Protein backbone atom coordinates (compact mmCIF):
# COMPACT_ATOMS: atom_id res chain seq x y z
CA UNK A 1 0.00 0.00 0.00
CA UNK A 2 1.49 3.34 -1.02
CA UNK A 3 0.26 6.91 -0.88
CA UNK A 4 -0.69 6.46 -4.53
CA UNK A 5 -2.70 3.29 -3.95
CA UNK A 6 -4.35 2.99 -0.57
CA UNK A 7 -6.86 0.13 -0.46
CA UNK A 8 -9.04 1.71 2.24
CA UNK A 9 -9.32 4.93 0.26
CA UNK A 10 -9.93 2.91 -2.90
CA UNK A 11 -12.84 1.15 -1.17
CA UNK A 12 -14.27 4.50 -0.05
CA UNK A 13 -13.93 5.84 -3.58
CA UNK A 14 -15.74 2.86 -5.13
CA UNK A 15 -18.52 3.23 -2.57
CA UNK A 16 -18.77 6.95 -3.27
CA UNK A 17 -18.98 6.46 -7.03
CA UNK A 18 -21.65 3.78 -6.65
CA UNK A 19 -23.72 5.97 -4.31
CA UNK A 20 -23.34 9.10 -6.43
CA UNK A 21 -24.57 7.30 -9.55
CA UNK A 22 -27.01 4.97 -7.87
CA UNK A 23 -30.21 6.62 -9.06
CA UNK A 24 -29.03 6.84 -12.68
CA UNK A 25 -27.81 3.24 -12.53
CA UNK A 26 -31.09 1.97 -11.13
CA UNK A 27 -33.01 3.68 -13.94
CA UNK A 28 -30.69 2.13 -16.55
CA UNK A 29 -30.79 -1.33 -14.95
CA UNK A 30 -34.58 -1.23 -14.60
CA UNK A 31 -35.02 -0.09 -18.21
CA UNK A 32 -32.68 -2.71 -19.70
CA UNK A 33 -33.98 -5.53 -17.48
CA UNK A 34 -37.55 -4.52 -18.29
CA UNK A 35 -36.95 -4.62 -22.04
CA UNK A 36 -35.10 -7.94 -21.81
CA UNK A 37 -37.81 -9.37 -19.61
CA UNK A 38 -40.54 -8.41 -22.07
CA UNK A 39 -38.57 -9.76 -25.07
CA UNK A 40 -37.69 -12.97 -23.18
CA UNK A 41 -41.29 -13.38 -22.08
CA UNK A 42 -42.61 -13.02 -25.61
CA UNK A 43 -40.06 -15.45 -27.04
CA UNK A 44 -40.61 -18.00 -24.28
CA UNK A 45 -44.37 -17.85 -24.56
CA UNK A 46 -44.87 -17.66 -28.33
CA UNK A 47 -41.75 -19.41 -29.56
CA UNK A 48 -40.45 -21.77 -26.84
CA UNK A 49 -38.03 -23.50 -29.20
CA UNK A 50 -36.08 -20.27 -29.70
CA UNK A 51 -35.33 -19.70 -26.03
CA UNK A 52 -31.74 -20.86 -26.60
CA UNK A 53 -31.28 -18.08 -29.14
CA UNK A 54 -31.91 -15.50 -26.46
CA UNK A 55 -28.37 -15.89 -25.09
CA UNK A 56 -26.66 -14.17 -28.06
CA UNK A 57 -29.26 -11.42 -27.79
CA UNK A 58 -28.47 -10.99 -24.08
CA UNK A 59 -24.77 -10.86 -24.94
CA UNK A 60 -25.27 -8.08 -27.48
CA UNK A 61 -27.21 -6.06 -24.90
CA UNK A 62 -24.60 -6.90 -22.27
CA UNK A 63 -21.72 -5.74 -24.51
CA UNK A 64 -23.47 -2.60 -25.68
CA UNK A 65 -24.70 -1.68 -22.20
CA UNK A 66 -21.24 -2.28 -20.76
CA UNK A 67 -19.55 -0.03 -23.29
CA UNK A 68 -22.09 2.75 -22.80
CA UNK A 69 -21.75 2.42 -19.02
CA UNK A 70 -17.95 2.47 -19.31
CA UNK A 71 -18.07 5.57 -21.50
CA UNK A 72 -20.07 7.35 -18.80
CA UNK A 73 -17.96 6.39 -15.80
CA UNK A 74 -16.10 9.73 -15.69
CA UNK A 75 -19.13 11.91 -16.42
CA UNK A 76 -18.67 13.76 -13.13
CA UNK A 77 -15.22 14.86 -14.28
CA UNK A 78 -16.56 16.19 -17.59
CA UNK A 79 -19.42 18.23 -16.15
CA UNK A 80 -18.26 21.83 -15.59
CA UNK A 81 -20.35 22.05 -12.43
CA UNK A 82 -19.22 18.76 -10.92
CA UNK A 83 -15.63 18.39 -12.09
CA UNK A 84 -14.21 20.43 -9.19
CA UNK A 85 -15.60 17.87 -6.71
CA UNK A 86 -14.14 14.91 -8.59
CA UNK A 87 -10.75 16.45 -9.23
CA UNK A 88 -10.26 17.86 -5.72
CA UNK A 89 -11.46 14.69 -3.99
CA UNK A 90 -8.55 13.45 -1.83
CA UNK A 91 -8.03 10.31 -3.89
CA UNK A 92 -4.97 9.62 -6.03
CA UNK A 93 -5.14 9.28 -9.80
CA UNK A 94 -4.30 5.56 -9.57
CA UNK A 95 -7.17 5.03 -7.12
CA UNK A 96 -9.58 6.92 -9.38
CA UNK A 97 -8.50 4.77 -12.33
CA UNK A 98 -8.62 1.45 -10.48
CA UNK A 99 -11.87 2.37 -8.69
CA UNK A 100 -13.62 3.29 -11.92
CA UNK A 101 -12.32 0.15 -13.64
CA UNK A 102 -13.52 -2.07 -10.79
CA UNK A 103 -17.03 -0.63 -11.18
CA UNK A 104 -17.23 -0.99 -14.96
CA UNK A 105 -15.44 -4.33 -15.21
CA UNK A 106 -15.82 -6.83 -12.32
CA UNK A 107 -18.87 -5.21 -10.72
CA UNK A 108 -20.62 -4.79 -14.06
CA UNK A 109 -19.63 -8.27 -15.21
CA UNK A 110 -20.98 -9.94 -12.09
CA UNK A 111 -24.22 -7.93 -12.24
CA UNK A 112 -24.71 -8.54 -15.95
CA UNK A 113 -23.91 -12.27 -15.84
CA UNK A 114 -26.19 -12.73 -12.82
CA UNK A 115 -28.96 -10.87 -14.64
CA UNK A 116 -28.48 -13.03 -17.74
CA UNK A 117 -28.72 -16.17 -15.61
CA UNK A 118 -31.92 -14.96 -13.99
CA UNK A 119 -33.46 -13.90 -17.30
CA UNK A 120 -32.33 -17.10 -19.02
CA UNK A 121 -33.69 -19.24 -16.21
CA UNK A 122 -36.96 -17.32 -16.16
CA UNK A 123 -37.52 -17.58 -19.91
CA UNK A 124 -36.58 -21.30 -19.90
CA UNK A 125 -39.04 -21.87 -17.08
CA UNK A 126 -41.81 -20.05 -18.99
CA UNK A 127 -40.96 -22.07 -22.10
CA UNK A 128 -40.96 -25.29 -20.07
CA UNK A 129 -37.45 -25.99 -21.31
CA UNK A 130 -34.95 -25.71 -18.42
CA UNK A 131 -31.87 -26.31 -20.55
CA UNK A 132 -31.02 -22.81 -21.78
CA UNK A 133 -28.57 -22.05 -18.97
CA UNK A 134 -25.67 -24.16 -20.27
CA UNK A 135 -25.55 -21.78 -23.23
CA UNK A 136 -24.16 -19.21 -20.85
CA UNK A 137 -21.64 -21.60 -19.41
CA UNK A 138 -20.26 -22.85 -22.71
CA UNK A 139 -16.55 -23.23 -23.40
CA UNK A 140 -16.42 -19.86 -25.10
CA UNK A 141 -17.96 -17.99 -22.17
CA UNK A 142 -14.63 -16.91 -20.66
CA UNK A 143 -13.28 -15.96 -24.06
CA UNK A 144 -16.34 -13.79 -24.68
CA UNK A 145 -15.95 -12.12 -21.29
CA UNK A 146 -12.25 -11.62 -22.02
CA UNK A 147 -13.00 -9.98 -25.36
CA UNK A 148 -15.49 -7.76 -23.59
CA UNK A 149 -12.88 -6.70 -21.04
CA UNK A 150 -10.21 -5.99 -23.66
CA UNK A 151 -12.53 -3.96 -25.89
CA UNK A 152 -13.85 -2.20 -22.83
CA UNK A 153 -10.44 -0.61 -22.20
CA UNK A 154 -10.89 1.27 -25.49
CA UNK A 155 -14.12 2.78 -24.18
CA UNK A 156 -12.43 3.38 -20.82
CA UNK A 157 -9.80 5.48 -22.56
CA UNK A 158 -12.60 7.25 -24.47
CA UNK A 159 -14.28 8.00 -21.12
CA UNK A 160 -11.15 9.79 -19.88
CA UNK A 161 -10.21 11.49 -23.14
CA UNK A 162 -13.43 12.98 -24.49
CA UNK A 163 -15.57 15.62 -22.81
CA UNK A 164 -19.19 14.63 -23.36
CA UNK A 165 -20.84 12.09 -25.72
CA UNK A 166 -17.95 9.77 -24.93
CA UNK A 167 -19.54 6.60 -26.30
CA UNK A 168 -20.32 8.09 -29.71
CA UNK A 169 -16.98 9.86 -29.91
CA UNK A 170 -15.16 6.62 -29.08
CA UNK A 171 -17.12 4.81 -31.80
CA UNK A 172 -16.22 7.55 -34.26
CA UNK A 173 -12.56 7.40 -33.24
CA UNK A 174 -12.62 3.60 -33.74
CA UNK A 175 -14.21 3.99 -37.14
CA UNK A 176 -11.61 6.55 -38.24
CA UNK A 177 -8.79 4.42 -36.83
CA UNK A 178 -9.90 1.23 -38.57
CA UNK A 179 -10.55 3.05 -41.83
CA UNK A 180 -7.03 4.46 -41.80
CA UNK A 181 -5.66 1.06 -40.74
CA UNK A 182 -7.48 -0.69 -43.59
CA UNK A 183 -6.17 1.88 -46.06
CA UNK A 184 -2.64 1.43 -44.77
CA UNK A 185 -2.66 -2.37 -44.74
CA UNK A 186 -4.41 -2.42 -48.10
CA UNK A 187 -1.70 -0.16 -49.50
CA UNK A 188 1.07 -2.30 -48.02
CA UNK A 189 -0.61 -5.44 -49.38
CA UNK A 190 -0.86 -3.88 -52.81
CA UNK A 191 2.81 -2.91 -52.79
CA UNK A 192 3.88 -6.40 -51.65
CA UNK A 193 1.62 -8.60 -53.75
CA UNK A 194 0.39 -6.39 -56.56
CA UNK A 195 -3.14 -6.30 -57.85
CA UNK A 196 -3.41 -10.08 -58.43
CA UNK A 197 -1.77 -11.21 -55.20
CA UNK A 198 0.92 -12.76 -57.40
CA UNK A 199 3.64 -12.31 -54.76
CA UNK A 200 2.10 -15.05 -52.62
CA UNK A 201 2.95 -17.71 -55.14
CA UNK A 202 6.61 -16.76 -55.59
CA UNK A 203 10.02 -16.77 -53.83
CA UNK A 204 9.44 -15.59 -50.26
CA UNK A 205 6.00 -17.14 -49.82
CA UNK A 206 7.10 -20.02 -47.55
CA UNK A 207 9.11 -17.89 -45.12
CA UNK A 208 6.51 -15.23 -45.27
CA UNK A 209 3.81 -17.78 -44.54
CA UNK A 210 5.72 -19.02 -41.46
CA UNK A 211 6.26 -15.50 -40.28
CA UNK A 212 2.61 -14.64 -40.71
CA UNK A 213 1.56 -17.85 -38.97
CA UNK A 214 3.77 -17.06 -35.98
CA UNK A 215 2.46 -13.53 -35.95
CA UNK A 216 -1.19 -14.55 -36.10
CA UNK A 217 -0.86 -17.50 -33.70
CA UNK A 218 1.44 -16.08 -31.05
CA UNK A 219 2.22 -12.40 -31.35
CA UNK A 220 -1.19 -11.05 -32.27
CA UNK A 221 -3.04 -12.82 -29.41
CA UNK A 222 -0.38 -11.62 -26.97
CA UNK A 223 -0.74 -8.07 -28.25
CA UNK A 224 -4.53 -8.28 -28.07
CA UNK A 225 -4.91 -9.95 -24.66
CA UNK A 226 -2.12 -8.25 -22.73
CA UNK A 227 -0.37 -5.35 -24.45
CA UNK A 228 -3.42 -3.52 -25.82
CA UNK A 229 -5.50 -3.38 -22.60
CA UNK A 230 -2.50 -2.53 -20.42
CA UNK A 231 -1.39 0.17 -22.83
CA UNK A 232 -4.88 1.69 -22.95
CA UNK A 233 -5.16 1.66 -19.16
CA UNK A 234 -1.77 3.35 -18.81
CA UNK A 235 -2.79 6.04 -21.32
CA UNK A 236 -6.08 6.46 -19.40
CA UNK A 237 -4.06 6.97 -16.21
CA UNK A 238 -2.08 9.80 -17.76
CA UNK A 239 -5.23 11.32 -19.27
CA UNK A 240 -6.72 11.42 -15.77
CA UNK A 241 -3.55 12.83 -14.28
CA UNK A 242 -3.31 15.61 -16.84
CA UNK A 243 -6.96 16.50 -16.60
CA UNK A 244 -7.74 20.14 -15.75
CA UNK A 245 -11.09 21.90 -15.49
Amino acid at each position, binding site marked *: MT*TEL*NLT*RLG*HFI*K*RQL*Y*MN*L*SAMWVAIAAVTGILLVVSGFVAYFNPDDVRNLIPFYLVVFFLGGYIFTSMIFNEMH*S*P*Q*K*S*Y*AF*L*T*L*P*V*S*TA*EKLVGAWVIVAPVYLITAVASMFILGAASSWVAGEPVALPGLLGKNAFKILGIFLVCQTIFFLGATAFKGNNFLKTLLALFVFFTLWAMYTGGVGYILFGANGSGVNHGFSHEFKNLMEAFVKHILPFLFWFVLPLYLLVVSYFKL*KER*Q*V
Partner: protein
Amino acid sequence: MIELSHINFRYKKKKQLFENLSLTLQPGFIYGLLGKNGAGKSSLLKLVSGLLYPNSGQCTVFGHHAAARKPAMLQDIYMIPEEFELPPVSLATFVKINSVFYTRFSQNQLNAYLAEFELSDDAKLSTLSYGQKKKFLIAFGLATNARVLILDEPTNGLDIPSKSQFRKIMAASLDEDKIIIISTHQVRDLENLIDNIVVLEQGNIIFNYSIAHISERLAFEYNLAGVPDEEILYTEELQGRKAGIVKNIAGVDSRVDMELLFNGIVKNAPAINEAFANLKYEY
Protein backbone atom coordinates in the same frame (compact mmCIF):
# COMPACT_ATOMS: atom_id res chain seq x y z
CA MET B 1 1.27 28.49 3.61
CA ILE B 2 0.29 28.90 -0.02
CA GLU B 3 3.04 30.06 -2.30
CA LEU B 4 2.65 30.98 -5.93
CA SER B 5 6.01 31.66 -7.47
CA HIS B 6 6.59 33.19 -10.92
CA ILE B 7 3.39 31.74 -12.32
CA ASN B 8 2.77 32.03 -16.03
CA PHE B 9 -0.57 30.80 -17.24
CA ARG B 10 -2.73 31.05 -20.32
CA TYR B 11 -5.84 29.22 -21.46
CA LYS B 12 -5.51 27.48 -24.81
CA LYS B 13 -5.81 29.89 -27.74
CA LYS B 14 -6.21 32.84 -25.39
CA LYS B 15 -3.86 35.60 -24.39
CA GLN B 16 -1.62 35.30 -21.36
CA LEU B 17 -3.60 35.59 -18.12
CA PHE B 18 -0.88 35.47 -15.46
CA GLU B 19 2.63 36.63 -16.21
CA ASN B 20 5.27 36.08 -13.57
CA LEU B 21 2.68 36.21 -10.79
CA SER B 22 3.93 35.64 -7.26
CA LEU B 23 1.84 35.61 -4.11
CA THR B 24 2.19 34.25 -0.59
CA LEU B 25 -0.80 33.55 1.64
CA GLN B 26 -0.14 32.91 5.32
CA PRO B 27 -2.18 30.75 7.72
CA GLY B 28 -4.38 32.44 10.26
CA PHE B 29 -5.92 34.95 7.87
CA ILE B 30 -9.00 35.39 5.74
CA TYR B 31 -8.05 36.75 2.35
CA GLY B 32 -10.51 38.68 0.22
CA LEU B 33 -9.73 38.19 -3.44
CA LEU B 34 -11.31 41.02 -5.37
CA GLY B 35 -11.34 42.00 -9.01
CA LYS B 36 -13.55 42.81 -11.94
CA ASN B 37 -15.04 40.14 -14.20
CA GLY B 38 -12.30 38.37 -16.12
CA ALA B 39 -9.54 39.63 -13.83
CA GLY B 40 -8.45 36.05 -13.16
CA LYS B 41 -9.85 35.45 -9.67
CA SER B 42 -11.41 32.05 -10.39
CA SER B 43 -8.38 30.97 -12.41
CA LEU B 44 -6.10 31.87 -9.51
CA LEU B 45 -8.25 29.81 -7.14
CA LYS B 46 -8.16 26.89 -9.57
CA LEU B 47 -4.37 27.08 -9.76
CA VAL B 48 -4.19 26.95 -5.97
CA SER B 49 -6.49 23.94 -5.78
CA GLY B 50 -4.70 22.07 -8.58
CA LEU B 51 -7.62 22.29 -10.99
CA LEU B 52 -5.44 24.19 -13.45
CA TYR B 53 -1.74 23.72 -14.10
CA PRO B 54 0.55 26.71 -14.64
CA ASN B 55 2.53 26.84 -17.89
CA SER B 56 5.56 27.67 -15.78
CA GLY B 57 6.25 28.59 -12.19
CA GLN B 58 5.24 26.78 -9.07
CA CYS B 59 2.23 26.68 -6.79
CA THR B 60 2.68 24.95 -3.45
CA VAL B 61 0.14 24.38 -0.70
CA PHE B 62 1.72 23.61 2.67
CA GLY B 63 4.74 22.29 0.79
CA HIS B 64 2.80 20.12 -1.69
CA HIS B 65 2.78 20.86 -5.40
CA ALA B 66 -0.80 21.79 -6.17
CA ALA B 67 -0.69 20.35 -9.70
CA ALA B 68 0.35 16.91 -8.40
CA ARG B 69 -3.08 16.63 -6.70
CA LYS B 70 -1.80 14.19 -4.09
CA PRO B 71 -4.40 13.03 -1.54
CA ALA B 72 -2.27 14.50 1.28
CA MET B 73 -2.68 17.95 -0.27
CA LEU B 74 -6.26 17.53 -1.41
CA GLN B 75 -7.49 16.65 2.06
CA ASP B 76 -6.15 20.01 3.16
CA ILE B 77 -8.12 21.92 0.53
CA TYR B 78 -11.84 22.37 0.22
CA MET B 79 -13.19 24.41 -2.64
CA ILE B 80 -16.68 25.80 -3.02
CA PRO B 81 -17.06 27.12 -6.55
CA GLU B 82 -19.57 29.70 -7.69
CA GLU B 83 -21.46 27.22 -9.84
CA PHE B 84 -21.87 23.64 -8.73
CA GLU B 85 -24.19 20.70 -8.98
CA LEU B 86 -24.82 18.27 -6.15
CA PRO B 87 -25.81 14.62 -6.58
CA PRO B 88 -29.42 13.54 -5.97
CA VAL B 89 -28.72 12.02 -2.57
CA SER B 90 -29.65 13.05 0.96
CA LEU B 91 -27.45 15.35 3.00
CA ALA B 92 -26.61 12.46 5.31
CA THR B 93 -25.59 10.21 2.40
CA PHE B 94 -23.44 12.93 0.86
CA VAL B 95 -21.70 13.38 4.20
CA LYS B 96 -21.29 9.63 4.71
CA ILE B 97 -19.64 9.02 1.34
CA ASN B 98 -17.48 12.15 1.19
CA SER B 99 -16.40 12.81 4.77
CA VAL B 100 -14.29 9.63 4.92
CA PHE B 101 -11.68 11.24 2.68
CA TYR B 102 -11.01 14.04 5.17
CA THR B 103 -9.15 12.74 8.21
CA ARG B 104 -9.99 15.77 10.37
CA PHE B 105 -13.69 15.80 9.51
CA SER B 106 -15.91 16.57 12.51
CA GLN B 107 -19.54 15.44 12.53
CA ASN B 108 -20.22 17.58 15.61
CA GLN B 109 -19.00 20.68 13.85
CA LEU B 110 -21.11 19.85 10.82
CA ASN B 111 -24.21 19.42 12.98
CA ALA B 112 -23.56 22.78 14.59
CA TYR B 113 -23.12 24.53 11.24
CA LEU B 114 -26.21 22.84 9.78
CA ALA B 115 -28.20 23.95 12.82
CA GLU B 116 -26.90 27.49 12.38
CA PHE B 117 -27.94 27.45 8.73
CA GLU B 118 -31.25 25.79 9.61
CA LEU B 119 -30.65 22.74 7.42
CA SER B 120 -31.89 19.26 8.24
CA ASP B 121 -29.65 16.30 7.40
CA ASP B 122 -32.49 14.14 6.09
CA ALA B 123 -33.26 16.60 3.29
CA LYS B 124 -32.48 15.52 -0.25
CA LEU B 125 -29.86 17.73 -1.89
CA SER B 126 -31.74 17.92 -5.18
CA THR B 127 -34.76 19.46 -3.45
CA LEU B 128 -32.80 22.28 -1.81
CA SER B 129 -32.65 25.80 -3.22
CA TYR B 130 -29.35 27.11 -4.61
CA GLY B 131 -28.77 29.14 -1.45
CA GLN B 132 -29.43 26.13 0.79
CA LYS B 133 -27.10 23.97 -1.27
CA LYS B 134 -24.43 26.62 -0.94
CA LYS B 135 -24.93 26.80 2.82
CA PHE B 136 -24.65 23.02 3.01
CA LEU B 137 -21.40 23.03 1.03
CA ILE B 138 -19.99 25.79 3.23
CA ALA B 139 -20.94 23.79 6.35
CA PHE B 140 -19.41 20.61 4.93
CA GLY B 141 -16.27 22.43 3.80
CA LEU B 142 -15.76 23.91 7.24
CA ALA B 143 -16.39 20.57 8.94
CA THR B 144 -13.65 18.91 6.87
CA ASN B 145 -11.20 21.10 8.79
CA ALA B 146 -9.15 21.42 5.64
CA ARG B 147 -6.43 23.99 6.24
CA VAL B 148 -7.29 25.82 3.03
CA LEU B 149 -10.86 26.80 2.38
CA ILE B 150 -11.54 28.41 -0.98
CA LEU B 151 -14.86 30.11 -1.59
CA ASP B 152 -15.75 31.58 -4.96
CA GLU B 153 -18.60 34.10 -4.61
CA PRO B 154 -19.90 32.45 -1.43
CA THR B 155 -22.60 35.00 -0.72
CA ASN B 156 -24.23 34.74 -4.16
CA GLY B 157 -27.66 33.25 -3.68
CA LEU B 158 -27.70 33.75 0.08
CA ASP B 159 -30.51 35.78 1.62
CA ILE B 160 -29.77 38.59 4.07
CA PRO B 161 -30.01 36.51 7.29
CA SER B 162 -27.87 33.81 5.69
CA LYS B 163 -25.20 36.35 4.76
CA SER B 164 -24.91 37.40 8.36
CA GLN B 165 -24.87 33.72 9.49
CA PHE B 166 -22.14 33.14 6.92
CA ARG B 167 -20.02 35.99 8.27
CA LYS B 168 -20.50 34.78 11.83
CA ILE B 169 -19.58 31.18 11.01
CA MET B 170 -16.57 32.12 8.90
CA ALA B 171 -15.16 34.44 11.55
CA ALA B 172 -15.61 31.77 14.22
CA SER B 173 -14.07 28.98 12.15
CA LEU B 174 -10.73 30.65 11.48
CA ASP B 175 -7.79 29.43 13.51
CA GLU B 176 -4.05 29.96 13.25
CA ASP B 177 -3.57 26.97 10.91
CA LYS B 178 -6.21 27.89 8.38
CA ILE B 179 -6.16 29.98 5.26
CA ILE B 180 -9.53 31.12 3.98
CA ILE B 181 -9.70 32.69 0.55
CA ILE B 182 -12.92 34.37 -0.45
CA SER B 183 -13.32 35.64 -3.98
CA THR B 184 -16.23 37.97 -4.54
CA HIS B 185 -17.74 40.89 -6.42
CA GLN B 186 -19.97 41.70 -3.51
CA VAL B 187 -17.36 43.47 -1.46
CA ARG B 188 -19.82 44.74 1.15
CA ASP B 189 -20.57 41.15 2.17
CA LEU B 190 -16.97 40.79 3.33
CA GLU B 191 -16.86 43.83 5.57
CA ASN B 192 -15.69 43.02 9.09
CA LEU B 193 -14.72 39.54 7.92
CA ILE B 194 -11.52 39.63 5.92
CA ASP B 195 -8.01 40.33 7.18
CA ASN B 196 -6.28 40.95 3.87
CA ILE B 197 -7.36 42.35 0.55
CA VAL B 198 -5.82 41.10 -2.67
CA VAL B 199 -6.98 42.84 -5.83
CA LEU B 200 -6.45 41.31 -9.24
CA GLU B 201 -6.61 43.27 -12.46
CA GLN B 202 -5.95 41.64 -15.84
CA GLY B 203 -3.96 38.87 -14.24
CA ASN B 204 -1.82 41.15 -12.10
CA ILE B 205 -1.98 41.72 -8.37
CA ILE B 206 -2.40 45.45 -8.07
CA PHE B 207 -3.06 45.61 -4.35
CA ASN B 208 -2.23 43.32 -1.42
CA TYR B 209 -2.46 44.72 2.10
CA SER B 210 -3.97 43.82 5.42
CA ILE B 211 -7.05 45.59 6.72
CA ALA B 212 -4.95 46.79 9.66
CA HIS B 213 -2.52 48.52 7.32
CA ILE B 214 -5.30 49.91 5.20
CA SER B 215 -7.14 51.44 8.13
CA GLU B 216 -3.85 52.85 9.41
CA ARG B 217 -2.88 54.43 6.10
CA LEU B 218 -6.20 55.37 4.52
CA ALA B 219 -9.34 57.12 5.64
CA PHE B 220 -12.71 56.90 3.93
CA GLU B 221 -14.62 60.17 3.76
CA TYR B 222 -18.20 60.65 2.60
CA ASN B 223 -17.93 64.44 2.25
CA LEU B 224 -14.65 65.70 0.95
CA ALA B 225 -15.56 69.38 1.30
CA GLY B 226 -12.65 71.11 3.02
CA VAL B 227 -10.17 68.25 2.55
CA PRO B 228 -6.97 69.53 0.91
CA ASP B 229 -6.45 68.15 -2.62
CA GLU B 230 -3.00 66.73 -1.83
CA GLU B 231 -4.55 64.41 0.76
CA ILE B 232 -7.20 63.03 -1.62
CA LEU B 233 -6.30 59.75 -3.32
CA TYR B 234 -9.60 58.96 -4.96
CA THR B 235 -13.01 60.62 -5.31
CA GLU B 236 -16.43 59.58 -6.55
CA GLU B 237 -19.90 61.08 -6.59
CA LEU B 238 -22.11 59.85 -3.77
CA GLN B 239 -25.66 61.20 -3.56
CA GLY B 240 -24.69 64.69 -4.67
CA ARG B 241 -21.56 64.82 -2.55
CA LYS B 242 -18.01 63.85 -3.15
CA ALA B 243 -16.88 60.79 -1.25
CA GLY B 244 -13.41 59.36 -1.44
CA ILE B 245 -10.26 57.91 -0.03
CA VAL B 246 -7.80 60.21 1.68
CA LYS B 247 -4.45 59.78 3.37
CA ASN B 248 -4.86 58.97 7.02
CA ILE B 249 -2.71 61.83 8.26
CA ALA B 250 -3.96 61.60 11.84
CA GLY B 251 -2.98 57.94 11.96
CA VAL B 252 -6.18 57.04 13.80
CA ASP B 253 -7.56 53.70 12.61
CA SER B 254 -10.71 54.19 10.57
CA ARG B 255 -13.40 51.87 9.26
CA VAL B 256 -12.51 50.47 5.83
CA ASP B 257 -15.20 51.01 3.21
CA MET B 258 -14.55 48.02 0.96
CA GLU B 259 -16.57 49.27 -1.96
CA LEU B 260 -14.91 52.67 -1.99
CA LEU B 261 -11.51 51.07 -1.59
CA PHE B 262 -12.12 48.60 -4.41
CA ASN B 263 -13.33 51.38 -6.73
CA GLY B 264 -10.30 53.48 -5.82
CA ILE B 265 -7.87 50.62 -6.48
CA VAL B 266 -9.45 49.69 -9.79
CA LYS B 267 -9.54 53.31 -11.00
CA ASN B 268 -6.20 54.46 -9.66
CA ALA B 269 -4.09 51.76 -8.05
CA PRO B 270 -0.76 53.67 -8.16
CA ALA B 271 -2.19 56.57 -6.11
CA ILE B 272 -3.64 54.21 -3.51
CA ASN B 273 -0.49 52.11 -3.36
CA GLU B 274 1.56 55.28 -2.86
CA ALA B 275 0.01 55.65 0.58
CA PHE B 276 1.75 52.38 1.48
CA ALA B 277 5.06 53.43 -0.05
CA ASN B 278 7.24 52.84 2.99
CA LEU B 279 5.47 49.58 3.87
CA LYS B 280 7.02 46.35 2.71
CA TYR B 281 4.93 45.26 -0.26
CA GLU B 282 3.47 41.89 0.62
CA TYR B 283 3.94 39.97 -2.58
